Every structure is written in structure tokens, then in C-alpha cells.
């Protein structure tokens, strides 16, 4: 599995056609997610499935459509770089000689805080998925930071690219749709509600199985993006308005933060959910549910906004400059 990953990576370095490199990057995402499953990281595999194999190639392609497909210049100083890279690599390999063997149960990472997470969290938080309890409760302040970063990045992309004008029905992207996609459209009409429903399932099932706000947000966004690709971004923007999305993206962060403030007001620490309800365990449940909802809303609307921004730059390239 890992060997395949290595081959793919080398091939990406080798190829000059950027489009092929992007396709291989998609395969690379699929492979690394399979690897994550085989070493028990189900939640991570879930995220990598949606992001590495789905969103990342789409974003890259959207950029390629604007920038052009082939590299032009020759490699600069390939030999010196190769030497530098080999030296760094050799140093790192020397470093691994002191590392604990792969999978050994008494390695340092497993002996500090992780033991407590594994042994106590099913009792303390009352939910079976330890990843969710660490993400949304023990390390919730950290997660708030991550959500803020995603929000900021989406706003940055909007500031750089978004022209605010929806594609008018006569523009290039819309015309491409006349190209008779009946089969695709009918099938997608069946699939899109299922995708959105599945995203909601992932959102609210995250406490019991793999899933949670991050994954659900990305899947939801993928559903909307599929609609936009087949029915035109102009139509999609009439259904899901960019202005609404901007408000929603901010609201997600706001929900997350205000849960923390409510906890403060009711006498606990910031994001200490046990204060939310008289029964601490039920309070923790409620807190996790609400902040996961906040995360989901922010991630979904940020991703859709980013795609709208790229699409609007594709439709009216001259307005961006």
C-alpha cells in the first residue's frame, strides 16, 4: 500500500502534464485514505476520502482551467536540488533509527495523555467514538481555532477572487450545459438528495461511528458542487445564495464560540459543556452536538463559497484583475 503511494508520488514528480499530475494526486488521495483505514484511523480516512480524493482535484482543476495545463520552463539546478534532498532524507532516515518500532504498544505517544482518553472518555463523555470526544470536548478550544482558520481562508479566497456576479444564462459555463447531459442530470437528480441526506447522517452520527462536522460539511458541499457543475453555477447561486452562505459561514463560528460563552456564564470554564444542563453527561452530549453543528455549517458554506469564487473567476476572468 505504502509502496504504491511512493510510486504515485514519484510519478507526480516525473510528469510534466499538470492535468495528469492532478489525476495522480486524486489516486494518491484514494491510496492514502486506504492506508488510513488499514491502520485504524477511520475518521481520518473519512475526511481524506472526501477532501483528498474529491475536493482537492476539483479545486486544482478549477485553477488549471484558468492558468493553463502545461509547464513550460526547464528544471532549475536539478542536480544540486537532488543532492540537497538526498542529504536531508538521509539525515531523517538516520533519525528514524532511534524511533520505536511501528505499532509497538509501549511507544512514547501511547503512554501519556492517550491512555486517559482511551480509558476514561467512554465514561466521562458517554459517547463511544473517542475521536469525537477528544475533538469536540477535551481539545475543543483547539478545534475552535481550526474552524476560525477555515473561515478566514474562505474569506480570503472571496476577497481575492469573487466578483459577486452570478454567471448569466448566456455565458460559457451555462452554454456547456446545452451539450446534452440528460443521463447525467437525471442520475444526479436522484443522487443529490441522497448525498445531502447522507451528509446529515454523518453529521449527527459522528458520536457513535466515524463522522462529525468536518466530514459532513465537506460531503454536503460536494453535493451542492455536483449540482452546480451539472446545472450551471448561475442556477446553483440562485438556489444557494452566496450572501446567505457568507452569513452562514460566520454563524457556524459564532455558534461554536457562543456555546463557550454560555458555558462561562453558567459558571464553568470556557467550553465546559457539563454546565449546560443539570445532568453533566447530558450537557456534554448537547454541547458536542451543537458545536459539531457549528463546525459542519462553517465547513460546508466555506467550501461552497470557495468553489463559487473559483467559478466566478472562470466566468469573468477580466473582472478579477
Amino acid at each position, binding site marked *: 500500500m505504502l509502496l504504491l503511494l511512493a510510486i504515485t508520488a514519484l510519478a507526480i514528480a516525473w510528469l510534466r502534464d499538470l492535468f495528469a499530475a492532478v489525476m495522480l494526486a486524486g489516486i494518491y488521495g484514494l491510496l492514502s485514505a486506504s492506508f488510513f483505514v488499514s491502520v485504524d484511523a477511520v475518521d481520518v480516512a473519512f475526511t*481524506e476520502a472526501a477532501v483528498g480524493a474529491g475536493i482537492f482535484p476539483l479545486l486544482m482543476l478549477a485553477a488549471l482551467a484558468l492558468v493553463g495545463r502545461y509547464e513550460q520552463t526547464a528544471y532549475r539546478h536539478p542536480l544540486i536540488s537532488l543532492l540537497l534532498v538526498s542529504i536531508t532524507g538521509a539525515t531523517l532516515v538516520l533519525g528514524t533509527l532511534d524511533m520505536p518500532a511501528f505499532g509497538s504498544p509501549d511507544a512514547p505517544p501511547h503512554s501519556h495523555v492517550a491512555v486517559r482518553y482511551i480509558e476514561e472518555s467512554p465514561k466521562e463523555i458517554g459517547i463511544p467514538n473517542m475521536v469525537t470526544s477528544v475533538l469536540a470536548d477535551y481539545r475543543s478550544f483547539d478545534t475552535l481555532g481550526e474552524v476560525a482558520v477555515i473561515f478566514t481562508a474562505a474569506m480570503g479566497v472571496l476577497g481575492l477572487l469573487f466578483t459577486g456576479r452570478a454567471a448569466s444564462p448566456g455565458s460559457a459555463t451555462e452554454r456547456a450545459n446545452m451539450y446534452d447531459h440528460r443521463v447525467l442530470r437525471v442520475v444526479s437528480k436522484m443522487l443529490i438528495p441522497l448525498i445531502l441526506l447522507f451528509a446529515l447522517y454523518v453529521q449527527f452520527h459522528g458520536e457513535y461511528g466515524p463522522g462529525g462536522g468536518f466530514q459532513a460539511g465537506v460531503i454536503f458541499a460536494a453535493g451542492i458542487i455536483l449540482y452546480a457543475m451539472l446545472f450551471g453555477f448561475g442556477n446553483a447561486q440562485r438556489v444557494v445564495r452566496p450572501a446567505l452562505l457568507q452569513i452562514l459561514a460566520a454563524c457556524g463560528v459564532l455558534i461554536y464560540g457562543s456555546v463557550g460563552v454560555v458555558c462561562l456564564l453558567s459558571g464553568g470554564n470556557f467550553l465546559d459543556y457539563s454546565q449546560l444542563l443539570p445532568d453533566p453527561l447530558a450537557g456534554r452530549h448537547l454541547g458536542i452536538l451543537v458545536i459539531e453543528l457549528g463546525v459542519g455549517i462553517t465547513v460546508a458554506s466555506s467550501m461552497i463559497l470557495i468553489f463559487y469564487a473559483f467559478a466566478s473567476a472562470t466566468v469573468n476572468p477580466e473582472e478579477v484583475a
Partner: protein
Amino acid sequence: MLMELYNYWVVILLMMTGFYIVIVQGNLIKKLIGLNLFQTSVFIFYISLGKVSGGSAPIFAEGVSSYSNPLPHVLILTAIVVGIATTALALALVIRIRNAYGTVEEEELQQRDLEC
């Protein structure tokens, strides 16, 4: 010995490939792909650290006594989504550069800067 550290070595190979792409290639998009490879290799490294042999996925279940370490999973899960958001930002910057300079090759960009 070989099998025990094999994972880490592949991670280093991936990381160095990404690094090489970032150094050698002049095309900004290709550089971003290389950066992404580098990033993924770090993800794989963390997840490899979290594996416990004989352990199962860290979702509490009846009859399972040993779990893999959930902490790296949490860190990487958020890192993946943040990574794609920042990649999007970088791509947006590349597109703006393309609109301003008409190229995304680093050498040509430097020439344009010198001409000004």
C-alpha cells in the same frame, strides 16, 4: 528492523519527493501539488505513530480491549480540512498572480519584476 521502520522510510521518501518538487519546479501550481504531497506525508507519519499493533479503531465497542491512539487522529482530521482551505487560498493567490503577470512560471515572474 526493516519491517519495523519501513513505514517511516516511505514517509521520508514521500516527504522528500514533495520537497524536491517544491524546489525544482518553476510552475506555481506544480509547487502547490508538491506542497500537498509533503503535507500528506506528515499526515501519514502521525497516523503511523498512532497505530498500536493488535489495536482496533478508537470507537468504543463491546469485546474490544485495545484501541489505537485517538489523539493523532484528531490532530490530523482537522489538519486535512484546514489544509484544503489554505490550499484554496494559495490557488486563489496563484490565479491573481496569473492575472497580474500573465504567467505562473517563477523565472518569468522574476524577469517581469526586474523589468519594472
